[in-house]
């Protein structure tokens, strides 16, 4: 390129070439969003020592399974699939990582248009309902019966969420709840008792001792909130209940302007702006592990990853109370697309039955920190021993009976999670008044709920 003399024609040609490069660049793959917890290698998942059973070698059914786990969660999921494939010879599960929960749902939506869908799919709490309303996932009761799956042993609070009009559409698998995490070293340094605060008022008293300031900069905050993209609206759900508020009623009427809901938002704003002991971070696990925040609320699904990667002892506790206790469930479950052959549906259900049986549900919970979805899992010797070794995990499981399903506004309204999350960002980051912002959010949620209600009337009458 040591001579560059341009004529007008060459100029235009170069521009065309450059333009198409830009166009190509624009349609490059979207970067994988930094998915949940930590990406460090986890402890090796349970050894797969069991010899493969040699059974009748008929025709093998291969099913494709789309999931959202990477890092140590991904390894645990791969191990689960491998155990299944080695346990029998009729079905081969092909696990395919799709990105975050959102990206998995995006790809499924695109797949429905293009008619290339998986046979089994992991859908998060905010996504399965949309696909149910669109008729894109199968009713599972008949299949469960064929596969010999008994729903009565599942944790009712988790199972019932995937049930519409007495029919099961979504089976709990990687279910979690928020949990209060704290850095025991910093707690000791501040001379605090080794436990999570019982109320927010108590934490408010502790917080100043946990802070570290340098001039006007907060070097270490007592607490960190995630941003909208990292599901602040999920963690705030419990906080609204604690204040006596809620996002919406069951009939999809919004209650964002309820004085108690607004009070909860005011509290969130104060923690960052007036009281100044909390920050809003893009990656709360990173802040917590790096010592930039002394405490946080985060998913139980992060428990294994955080415990492995922290350079300090990690403490956990129930969420703090305000007027009352409030904690919601979350995470993801398994669904089977409609519009695939029955044979594949049954194969997918066979995998679900395996992955959520008493033993495997325990192995998955121990590998990750997600809740054991089966009641009987808690009594297995492996689990009892694990609880003894990991009291933190016992705490997470003990909190489960106190939790309940989230409000419709977040989980059933398309994008409701992000609408509320952006609203909270306006309140916390921009410092706008909670009443004004939540009035906007109430209207936006109401508008977003309209098409869902319309479809729901058609589906459920």
């Amino acid at each position, binding site marked *: *390129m*040591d*001579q*560059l*003399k*341009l*004529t*007008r024609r060459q*100029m235009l040609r*170069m*521009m065309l070439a*450059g*333009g198409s490069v*830009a*166009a190509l*660049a*624009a349609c*490059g793959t*979207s*970067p*994988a*969003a*930094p998915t949940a917890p930590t990406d460090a290698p986890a402890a090796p998942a349970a050894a797969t020592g069991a010899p493969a059973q040699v059974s009748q070698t008929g025709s093998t059914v291969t099913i494709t399974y789309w999931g959202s786990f990477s890092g140590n969660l991904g390894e645990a999921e791969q191990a689960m699939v491998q155990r299944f494939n080695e346990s029998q010879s009729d079905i081969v599960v092909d696990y395919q990582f799709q990105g975050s929960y*959102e990206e998995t749902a*995006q790809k499924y*939506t*695109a797949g*429905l*248009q293009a008619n290339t869908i998986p046979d089994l799919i992991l859908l998060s709490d905010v996504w399965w309902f*949309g*696909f149910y*309303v*669109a008729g*894109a996932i199968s009713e599972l009761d008949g299949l469960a019966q064929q596969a010999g799956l008994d729903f009565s042993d599942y944790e009712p609070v988790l199972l019932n969420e995937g049930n519409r009009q007495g029919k099961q559409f979504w089976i709990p698998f990687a279910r979690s709840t928020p949990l209060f995490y704290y850095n025991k070293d910093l707690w000791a340094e501040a001379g605090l008792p080794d436990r999570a605060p019982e109320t927010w008022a108590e934490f408010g008293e502790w917080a100043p001792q946990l802070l570290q300031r*340098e*001039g*006007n*900069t907060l*070097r*270490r905050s007592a607490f960190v909130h995630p*941003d*909208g*993209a990292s599901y602040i609206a999920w963690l705030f759900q419990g906080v609204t209940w604690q204040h006596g508020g809620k996002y919406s009623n069951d009939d999809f009427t919004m209650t964002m302007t309820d004085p108690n809901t607004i009070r909860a938002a005011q509290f969130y704003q104060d923690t960052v702006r007036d009281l100044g002991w909390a*920050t*809003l*971070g*893009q990656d709360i696990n990173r802040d917590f592990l*790096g010592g*930039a925040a002394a405490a946080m609320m985060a998913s139980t699904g992060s428990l294994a990853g955080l415990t492995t990667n922290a350079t300090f002892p990690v403490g956990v506790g129930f969420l703090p109370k305000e007027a009352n206790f409030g904690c919601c469930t979350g995470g993801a479950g398994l669904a089977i697309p409609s519009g695939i052959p029955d044979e594949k549906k049954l194969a997918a259900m066979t995998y679900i039955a395996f992955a959520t049986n008493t033993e495997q549900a325990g192995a998955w919970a121990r590998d990750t920190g997600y809740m054991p979805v089966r009641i009987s899992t808690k009594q297995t010797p492996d689990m009892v021993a694990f609880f003894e070794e990991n009291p933190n995990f016992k705490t997470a499981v003990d909190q489960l009976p106190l939790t309940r399903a989230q409000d419709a506004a977040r989980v059933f309204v*398309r*994008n409701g999670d*992000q609408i509320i999350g*952006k609203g909270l*960002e*306006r309140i916390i*980051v*921009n410092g706008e008044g909670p009443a004004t912002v939540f009035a906007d959010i109430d209207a936006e949620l109401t508008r*977003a709920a309209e*098409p869902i209600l319309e*479809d729901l009337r058609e589906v459920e009458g």
Partner: protein
Amino acid sequence: MRERREWLLFALLIGPNLFLFGVFTYWPLLYNFYLSFVSWNFLRPRKRFVWFENYVDVFSQAQFWTIVWNTVIFALFSVGLTLLIGLALALLLNQPLRYRNGARAVLFSPVIMSGAVVAVVWSYIFDPRYGLIDQLLGLIGLNSPNWLGDPAWAMPAVIMVYVWKNLGYAVVIYLAGLQGIPRELYDAARVDGAGPWDRFWHVTLPGLSPVAFFLSVTSILATFQAFDIIKVLTNGGPVIATTTLIFHLYDLGFVSYNAGEAGVIAIVLFAIMLILTIIQLRYLEQRVAYS
């Protein structure tokens, strides 16, 4: 007979490209026009025709105008800084310096890196508590702003990363342009008694005008499509401080699943880029000195 053969050859040569353009460019363009007039969430079987409802909805949202403003700021500063700093660096690297080739390679390397990777690395550099910038500012007794968490600083941060990533490309194009300016012009200028400043102003700059023009057109088009860095670095936030039109399109289409409103944004983007390109070709190019 001969004419027919030529036509056949013409069709053969043009055909494959025309087919690809048709399928991947023109058809989506037309289909997008259609989508901007319907209400559809990608999942429902029916698309309801709503005339201009999507347009009214998009234009009446207060945040739309903030987003347009964000886009203008992002494009203006990204392109302006890339062109100016790129020119300065190209002039410097055109001097017979030691390690010149090494410096050129280092400068160009961010161009070939993935935008997502660049953004992840910079998110650590920007961290106000343990980031590199904070450490450097600490040396002179300053505190780092909360780059990615403060609505006032997030856009400057995104622009910095974008310029850093794309600077090398501008420099290489400028360098090629500089080497294309005939030696004789400088010699003649020198004979006429022109100093370094005059030589720059009257020989280098006009000589560079075609490549500067080329860079300005392509960079502007590219900034309007810049997505990866914003997605990973700030995800359009905090709130909507770094949401540009292309990001808004993604947000509406693939996060909110509102195909119609996303279609409207695509049309707006298309119109803006078309108008900008026409203006640039019509007016700016008159001032370009082609050899």
